[in-house]
């Protein structure tokens, strides 16, 4: 006769799940209807072009993963061998910047450095003889992906190395272990355990990468599924092909996500700065020199495009840009949409977190999770399987019969960006929520504090900071996103990344650089704020 009292948190979670299901289900319905209407077209879309695109998608992702994860392993080990040197903290902080930087900003930074007219063009031309063609195509994609994922993988490996107990180091030093046996016996086992998860995460990020491939890919020779979906909808208008491409993309990401979960990967990527424990083994002179070289190379590689973004941005006529009507409108649109998306994202996340907690409290120890609890637990993860461009494509196809797809751009951008940011928002909020609930749950029950009273008197004061962290992070992600707006954007609804893409397309490179600087700075400030809020909240 176990009877569970109703809990408004569970209702809220169910509503949030329904909203997410509607967003994803609507996209799928759009795809299904479109595919069913034009079956022969869909079958015909399975042509050599499709297979070439699919092959390139996998190939560039595999290469990017190899080039990011291999060096990252060495750099992380080098950093962990030298737990205290001047600037170490700064380097680690710099390595968190790519997480905040919109892909289009990084792409521009890389072009400004290695492009046909980039700062290094002269050097490369001198080295190779003849004119430097720039790094469009596969090489451009790889450089950009490594720029994003080398720092991420480095931080994750460093975190893994941080889990080695201090006692093991003490023991190693007592036994007189040199660098090589210490690596083989102590560091490598930990790194090897972390390797599949980290490589899987990077691979996943690279097969769903859209903006980088769109801006640096250049031509049908270097196109991935996501970009092909976009082109099928925006340029060729070939819905049948879009459906097939989308299904292929979903199947691919689904397989990777399943494999990732099997490997126990951290599919969100952590923004924490690892703290180095005290070390008892000191590196020899030779090793120190090698490590210093490695770290310096990685630093140059990561800092280069950032520096180039700043320099080329400052060369732009910022005053004129700021006065331009289009820029002002895009800034306002971006800010408004990002605010709304962040608000929605945090609200949905909180609803899922609270429902999950309420359900797990109701469940006894050792009991099995119900369907709803499973959904509340992993619901946001669906977004990882269904990339934003796929959601956008589904709704684009569904809505074009009913309404003007470009008019609903704001709704789509807000909804998809909100859901896209949820895994990150949940990571920021959930630990704080669960800890607060651990302290307050019985007291609230005993005193009959529930519903709105509980939210305003108890939950809000203790969750303000983590909510703000999640909000700032979601806003930064939404501000920098190009995926959905690329499909739905038009002259009447332009965000900053969309405007940036347009300026790039019309070869107004200086304008694009100026906008990139603006966008990059705003996102960076938001993520720094998010980090600071999260840190303060912990103390």
């Amino acid at each position: 006769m176990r009877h569970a009292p109703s809990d408004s948190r569970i209702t809220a979670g169910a509503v949030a799940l329904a909203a997410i299901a509607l967003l994803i289900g609507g996209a799928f319905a759009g795809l299904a209807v479109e595919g069913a209407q034009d079956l022969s077209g869909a079958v015909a879309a399975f042509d050599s072009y499709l297979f070439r695109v699919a092959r390139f998608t996998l190939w560039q992702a595999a290469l990017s993963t190899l080039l990011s994860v291999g060096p990252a392993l060495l750099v992380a080990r080098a950093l962990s061998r030298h737990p205290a040197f001047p600037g170490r903290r700064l380097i680690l902080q710099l390595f968190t910047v790519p997480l905040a930087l919109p892909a289009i900003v990084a792409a521009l930074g890389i072009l400004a450095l290695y492009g046909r007219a980039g700062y290094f063009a002269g050097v490369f031309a001198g080295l190779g003889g003849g004119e430097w063609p720039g790094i469009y195509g596969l090489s451009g994609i790889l450089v950009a992906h490594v720029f994003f994922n080398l720092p991420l993988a480095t931080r994750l490996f460093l975190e893994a190395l941080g889990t080695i107990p201090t006692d093991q180091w003490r023991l190693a030093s007592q036994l007189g272990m040199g660098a090589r046996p210490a690596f083989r016996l102590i560091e490598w086992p930990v790194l090897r355990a972390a390797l599949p998860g980290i490589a899987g995460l990077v691979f996943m990020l690279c097969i769903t990468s859209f903006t980088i491939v769109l801006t640096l890919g250049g031509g049908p020779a270097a196109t991935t599924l996501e970009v092909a979906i976009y082109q099928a909808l925006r340029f060729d208008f070939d819905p049948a092909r879009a459906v097939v491409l989308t299904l292929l993309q979903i199947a691919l990401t689904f397989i990777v996500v399943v494999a990732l979960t099997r490997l126990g990967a951290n599919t969100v990527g952590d923004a924490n700065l690892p703290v180095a424990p005290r070390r008892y083994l000191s590196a020899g002179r030779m090793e120190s020199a090698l490590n210093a070289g490695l770290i310096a190379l990685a630093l140059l590689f990561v800092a280069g495009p950032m520096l180039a973004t700043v320099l080329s941005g400052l060369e732009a006529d910022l005053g004129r840009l700021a006065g331009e009507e289009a820029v002002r409108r895009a800034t306002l649109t971006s800010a408004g949409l990002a605010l709304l998306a962040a608000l929605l994202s945090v609200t949905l996340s909180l609803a899922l977190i609270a429902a999950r907690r309420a359900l797990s409290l109701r469940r006894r120890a050792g009991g099995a999770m119900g369907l709803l609890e499973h959904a509340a637990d992993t619901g946001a993860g669906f977004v990882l399987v269904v990339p934003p461009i796929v959601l956008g494509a589904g709704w684009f196809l569904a809505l074009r019969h009913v309404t003007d797809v470009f008019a609903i751009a704001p709704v789509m951008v807000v909804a998809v960006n909100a859901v896209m940011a949820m895994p990150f928002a949940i990571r920021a909020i959930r630990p704080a929520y669960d800890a607060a609930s651990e302290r307050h749950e019985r007291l609230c029950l005993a005193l009959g504090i529930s519903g709105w009273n509980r939210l305003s008197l108890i939950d809000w004061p203790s969750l303000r900071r983590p909510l703000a962290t999640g909000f700032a992070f979601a806003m930064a992600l939404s501000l920098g996103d190009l995926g959905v707006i690329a499909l739905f954007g038009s002259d009447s609804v332009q965000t900053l990344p969309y405007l940036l893409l347009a300026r790039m397309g019309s070869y107004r490179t200086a304008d694009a650089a100026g906008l990139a600087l603006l966008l990059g700075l705003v996102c960076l400030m938001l993520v720094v704020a998010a980090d600071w809020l999260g840190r303060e909240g912990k103390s």
Partner: protein
Amino acid sequence: MTTSNGTAQKGLAVRLDGVSFSYGEASFRFDAEFADGRITAIMGPSGSGKSTLLNLIAGFEVPDAGKVLIGGTDLGTAPPSARPVSMVFQENNLFAHLSVEANVGLGRSPSLKLGDADRIAVAEALARVGLAGKEKRLPRELSGGERQRVALARVLLRDRPVLLLDEPFASLGPALRDDMLDLVAGIHAERKMTVLFVTHQPEDARRIGQDVAFLDEGTIAATGPAEDFFDRSGPDAFRRYIGDRGGTVAGSQHIARKRT
């Protein structure tokens, strides 16, 4: 049965009628009656079900079978806040971000809408537990003992006929613990509520306990007046639990005094 002039309502008897409950691997079965207006010390080894017993009475857990009756009324699945019960936990009795006054005031109104009369009642309750003038403090500005006093002030304000104490003084030093127990005994003398308190310390039980209930392996193994438990005729399992040290606590103090 609170009367308008503030005199307290009397305690109500607590009865567990064939209550069974399981939690993971552990299972419990309780049949007991705690008389109204008495102070009962709940003792027993870790995992014997002391906290579970209190949680079932308070409504944090719902029995798989059987009934919990307070004052003869079956509480069924009534939520904790609707039961004639106040409970003080070992920790987390206060909301860290709310002032002492607000934390006590929540005992009057869960939406914290307090009128002047309520504020006066809060101040009186705080004065009764020795915290007069500390209304605006935050919990982190109080000592551990003071925090539990705030919780007791809220108990006074809620004025429920049953008070459950789940080791609320376990982390306090011996002298402070005695003070707090005396405070509970004083409140009990005024309000005559039924008190069940969990403790690991025989001295605590001897100090204010009128009855003792001894729990072992998920069931109530023995109950009776406290004095019967602490002389040599107490149940064997209980004497093993407190450790038969060839004399009672008071006895050993007596010996110590002789030697000086």
